[in-house]
């Protein structure tokens, strides 16, 4: 957990990255995609965040094939997230950047953290994001001839289309919907 996101660390980080937000104990830095590698490199070398936790993406879109769309309309884009941590105090930072959906390209982090290799491959096949200079940008889980990017919001869950999820009964038609009432 981020209990030990201590005050000193947060202060020094805020000085370097004014975009720092702290929501629900999760520190998040938003940068331009042109600063992507430099930011991660700086966090690794200057803030001792040497532990690479994960990298992933979010597809922000108003038209969704599954689930609910965002509450407020958004400009469609991909958000790329990279989570770094240290290995002594438990400080944790999530770096975020945006790229547009027309040309989903971003430089690969493999030069900074070799461990991002597999995470980038996963984001590549699930979202169709191209990581420039990645040594081996091939599919991770899906068969080689698979078409489409399953994690896109426009990608339908076919089994759900054919047979609705039985649990949906629980979701709809609850008489007390919205009332703040305790269960017991």
């Amino acid at each position: 957990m981020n209990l030990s996101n201590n005050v000193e660390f947060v202060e020094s980080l805020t000085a370097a990255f004014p975009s720092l937000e702290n929501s629900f104990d999760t520190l998040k830095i938003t940068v331009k995609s042109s600063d992507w590698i430099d930011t991660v490199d700086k966090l690794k070398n200057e803030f001792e965040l040497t532990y690479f936790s994960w990298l992933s993406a979010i597809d922000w879109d108003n038209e969704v094939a599954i689930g609910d769309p965002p509450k407020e309309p958004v400009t469609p884009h991909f958000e790329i997230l990279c989570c770094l941590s240290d290995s002594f105090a438990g400080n944790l930072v999530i770096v975020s950047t945006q790229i547009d959906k027309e040309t989903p390209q971003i430089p690969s982090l493999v030069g900074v953290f070799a461990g991002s290799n597999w995470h980038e491959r996963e984001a590549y096949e699930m979202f169709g994001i191209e990581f420039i200079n990645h040594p081996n940008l091939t599919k991770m889980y899906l068969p080689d001839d698979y078409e489409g990017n399953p994690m896109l919001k426009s990608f339908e869950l076919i089994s759900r289309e054919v047979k609705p999820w039985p649990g949906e009964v629980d979701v709809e038609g609850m008489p007390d919907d919205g009332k703040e009432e305790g269960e017991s």
Partner: protein
Amino acid sequence: MDENLNSGSIPYVSEASVSVEIETEDMTLNIGPQHPSTHGVLRLVAKVDGEKISSVEPVLGYMHRGYEKLAEVRTYPQITTLVNRIDWVSGFANEIPFIAATEKLMEIEAPERAKHIRLILTEMARIASHFVFNGAYALEIGALTPIFLAMEDRERILDLIESVTGGRFHPNFNRIGGIKPAAGSGPTTKKNIQDLPAGFYQDTRDAMEKVLEAVERMENLVGGNEVFKIRTKGVGIISKELAEEYGVSGPILRASGVKFDLRSQTDFLPYDKFDYDIPIGENGDCYDRWYVRLMEMKESAKIILQAIDSMPSGPLQTKVPKVIKVPKGQSYVRTENPKGEMGYYVISEGGLGPYRLKVRTPSFSNISILPVLLEGQLLPDLIAIMGSLDFVLGDVDR
């Protein structure tokens, strides 16, 4: 050479003839996906030069179930059922970070008693998971006995988990804001809520005694074995820097000498109330990884015994709305799973289900180090190294 011939030592002649390097072609060896040592359905495509591995390419996806996508069409209470099945060897421990992230977004907190029960069951899941490792690893090295002992010992732990939750592998016991009323405690009305089953405390104490005994026995039986030592000491060394660069976590990271345990930084489980050590290794080899896990079982048993003694009374559930809607927000919560850092990044848009759920699993990052680690190793060591990483394919593929 002349000198040798003169002195009459002939063997040198024959040795000269074999030490000539012959150009050979690398052979491609396919291991898995149905190989017993791959813990499920991992496939490795290895290029071997004789007994030496020149490169390895893991092929994943045989167990890919798309949980991140499925989570987008489920409500929050339904997702706990899914996350149970990510790492099936320690199902209970998977639920905790997801529930904690959701509770954080809803700004509610589980009652103290529920937190204690969660902690006890998490540690039991850790012991059960490490028992599987201890048995299976010795088996992979070539010792048949430990797996039977370990499975018997693990069964005691699973019985306890079952007595509380009703499930051995997939408890699905956590609820947002607390825990489900326990399974084995007789019929009750809503007012008189069910609690831990009768005799749970004493059964747990007995079982923990047995765990401590089992750890000692395992230490002598496996750790004292010469073959085991030769097969594991100095094999598959992971340096601290390499481990961090690849996001390797948990006992593997600690075996490389990094004293980093997320349990000490947790605010949703009361670990700070208890006394325990964080075992670390020195060399980062297979033996250390085995030893760190063995010692962790001891520490887990110690934590459970303390938690039983200091169990607070009180409710098991905090008040939550009947229909759970999570306010807009993003939160990442990670915990120390038996296999390493397990985290959930919940992105809520205020609906009944998450807009996106990123699942960070320990085994995925842990085995991403395999191509680097196995390069240049001998083929028989491949089994020893792979086994020491203790991965579960459900945890790799999600």
